[in-house]
């Protein structure tokens, strides 16, 4: 790496350390931090929760990073695709009686086909154009999806009661069973896709196209087909993320909006198009959010600010993120 | 680039040649501020320009063209000309000068056409006269002959000589040896980022290192 590249990486690392320290400092000054064992138990629980949550965040983000990395398209509807995943899982659970994890067998292919359709009808024409066009197209798509969902499901919050028990790791540390299962699934799916990208011919073709589409085309890769497959894969991953979310939180048609921005923050932190970067970014954001919600007054609103703040500072210090080159 | 040193005499036409990848365009980029040097100086009119931004260097009277034309495609020819800054003259005067230059390269009938719709040769001409809007003293031309037909090239070279007669200094990067050998007073040769030779055309043609750089070492 060049000198300025290395420098910006150090700067980013320093910033991240400050970002993690900040909730503690704020908490100390506001008195929400205590040094007793009970509180430390809370802290450990919250951090652990954050890590588990990070697995799910990572699921949203890898789909987006693939799409952004391969096609340079900002999918402003990504959160809505997660939301769609949550609703699909809900439908399978309540109307078909399927276990949410099992229903993935059904929902993932649907998601893949949906991604293909979106790419074919909408995004293919938009790939070479300035980013505004893709942003608007996907934004419009997202809006439409929200309104269709409202029409079908109304704006009521839905939940899926699943694995309600808790896992007690120590007298003061407990996490929900559903969170652990979600995390496990997230790890399994991420690992599977990682191996696919790394080892299979198709996976390598995708990575090649992400690096340089023109060269890939000259090497005989059918770039149009790769775009289609990437789109399908990205949406499938988003939907998987949605399924995992559905067993942990309540959701309604509008919850996707926040997920989109969080996903962007994650892929910018991790590096555009970098698969592992998205995984790391997801974990880091989730842990940061947990810390903020515990220690900063007005925690729940500030959590959003944490994501935006993180994103903007990363863009200013090192737009390429942790795993990318400086300028991306 | 590594430890290169050039002195370009004022009022001459010089050539910068070398095999592909030898660092010629990089040199131009360093001179015009698109790249920042890690060390060394760029002295122009007694001032060190290293580290200045491109627009600051431009305002000191140095202008350049690019290897692949960088005209503004979605703007008209006239707008391309008027976008140039540093003029500090009323719009009317700037417009007159623009029209003059456009007419000079026979692009007058295309003044309201989008730059992107011009033919490649016309785009090269546009880039050339656009660079002349501010009456610069040092003009760096990056492969002006590439992709241009003989007649057009003739016009360009004529104008180049006329500029020199007015006291301008010109440096050309080129691969076309006819252009270089017949129109440059002094030639600098680069290879792998270092200067390997310097001198008038006749000397350079005979220089063994130059031949080696272009054609490889002669097998004895």
């Amino acid at each position: 790496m060049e000198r300025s590249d290395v420098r910006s990486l150090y700067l980013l690392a320093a910033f991240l350390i400050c970002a993690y320290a900040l909730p503690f400092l704020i908490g100390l000054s506001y008195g929400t931090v205590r040094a007793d064992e009970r509180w430390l138990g809370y802290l450990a629980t919250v951090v652990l929760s954050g890590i588990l949550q990070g697995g799910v965040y990572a699921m949203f983000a890898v789909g987006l990073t693939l799409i952004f990395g391969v096609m340079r398209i900002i999918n402003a509807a990504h959160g809505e695709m997660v939301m769609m995943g949550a609703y699909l899982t809900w439908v399978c659970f309540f109307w078909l009686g399927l276990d949410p994890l099992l229903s993935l067998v059904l929902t993932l292919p649907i998601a893949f086909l949906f991604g293909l359709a979106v790419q074919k009808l909408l995004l293919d024409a938009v790939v070479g154009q300035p980013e505004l066009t893709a942003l608007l197209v996907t934004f419009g798509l997202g809006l439409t999806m929200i309104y269709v969902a409202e029409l079908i499901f109304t704006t009521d919050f839905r939940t899926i009661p699943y694995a309600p028990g808790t896992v007690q790791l120590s007298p003061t540390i407990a996490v929900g069973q559903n969170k652990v299962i979600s995390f496990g699934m997230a790890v399994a799916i991420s690992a599977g896709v990682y191996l696919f990208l790394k080892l299979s011919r198709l996976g390598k073709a995708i990575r090649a196209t992400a690096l340089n589409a023109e060269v890939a085309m000259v090497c005989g890769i059918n770039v149009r087909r790769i775009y289609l497959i990437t789109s399908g894969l990205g949406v499938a991953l988003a939907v998987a993320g949605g399924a995992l979310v559905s067993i942990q939180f309540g959701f309604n048609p509008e919850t996707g909006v926040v997920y989109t921005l969080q996903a962007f923050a994650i892929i910018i932190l991790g590096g555009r198009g970098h698969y592992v970067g998205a995984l790391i970014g997801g974990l880091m954001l989730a842990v940061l959010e947990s810390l903020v919600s515990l220690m900063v007054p007005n925690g729940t609103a500030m959590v959003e600010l944490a994501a935006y703040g993180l994103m903007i500072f990363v863009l200013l210090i090192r737009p390429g993120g942790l795993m990318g080159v400086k300028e991306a | 680039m590594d430890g290169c040193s050039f002195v370009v005499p004022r009022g001459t036409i010089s050539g910068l040649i070398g095999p592909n990848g030898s660092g010629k365009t990089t040199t131009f980029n360093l001179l015009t501020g698109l790249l920042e040097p890690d060390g060394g100086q760029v002295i122009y009119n007694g001032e060190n320009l290293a580290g200045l931004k491109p627009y600051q260097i431009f305002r000191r009277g140095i202008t350049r063209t690019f290897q692949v034309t960088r005209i503004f495609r979605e703007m008209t020819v006239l707008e391309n000309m008027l976008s140039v800054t540093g003029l500090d003259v009323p719009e009317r005067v700037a417009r007159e000068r623009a029209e003059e230059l456009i007419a000079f390269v026979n692009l007058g009938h295309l003044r309201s056409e989008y730059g992107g719709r011009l033919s490649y040769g016309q785009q090269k001409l546009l880039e050339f006269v656009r660079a002349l809007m501010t009456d610069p003293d040092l003009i760096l031309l990056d492969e002006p002959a590439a992709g241009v037909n003989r007649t057009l090239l003739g016009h360009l070279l004529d104008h180049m000589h006329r500029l020199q007669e007015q006291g301008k200094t010109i440096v050309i990067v080129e691969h076309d040896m006819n252009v270089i050998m017949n129109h440059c007073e002094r030639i600098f040769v680069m290879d792998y980022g270092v200067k390997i030779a310097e001198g008038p055309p006749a000397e350079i043609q005979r220089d063994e290192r130059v031949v080696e750089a272009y054609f490889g070492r002669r097998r004895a």
Partner: protein
Amino acid sequence: MTPREHLRNLALLGAAGIVLALTPYTLSVYLRTFAMFTMMYVVLALSWNIISGFTGYTSFGHVAFYGIGAYACAILVTDYRWHWLPTLGAGAVLAAVVAIGIGYPVLRLKGPYFAIAMLGAAEGTRVVATVWDSLTHGGLGISLPSGENSIPTYYAMLALMLVTIAVCYVVGHSRFGIRLNAIREDEVAAEALGINATLYKLAAFTLSAVFPAAAGGIQAYKVLYIDPPAVFFVQITIAMALMSMLGGKGTIIGPIVGAVMLYTAQELTWVNFPTAHLIAYGLFIVLVARFMPRGLVGLAIDRGWVRKGMIH
């Protein structure tokens, strides 16, 4: 454009202004509000166009400035007892300061990153407004003292629209505008031609921030109640972008046409098809972005009905 053409355009603008100035008393309250909103969107679309259309830096967070203006007016009128008109100026100044502050770092980013950063900035502003409740009353919102504001705000918006059109017109036909276009086309080449891109971008960005702020202030005074979600509404940014794009990004008549057409269409569908209208809106965005990225004016230029370029 010849001086005669400039005069003609000025006359047209003046005529439109006079017509609009005479109408409020003859219109129903509903139509008056409709006209006011349309004028507001013209202001917003034109402003957005300065940074995104001319300069090519697509801002997806411009609603932040609108919101800042709205809050400036609301806070100053309610808590500090200012008269509402000066608050518009205060809001504009505040927006300019924020624009310079955010713009200086963020304008260094390229294309999609700039868009995302601005989106984050806008959402961040919303969260700040919610959380800083000592200043902004947080999620409760601010209720302004009531009064019959319909007519005064109408005229304020009309004046704002005329000023915005005039400024955009001047910018668009000046060398400043050409240089902004140059930055959009090829920033590196523009720098090599002597354009101090950082300065120009910042100027464009700041200019594009002040008018939405004033519009926000007028809106706040008209509606008499604001809270963070209402004012930092991301749909407003989308509307700005869509209107500009529909009419023709990078032109002057484009955003005006786009704003009028889109807002009218929106109102008509909303009135006649209340549930389906939102879905239709979403689909409409998709279709326009997919099939007409150069907008109506772009089509007109391609057909030869309108001349190319701004300076002739």
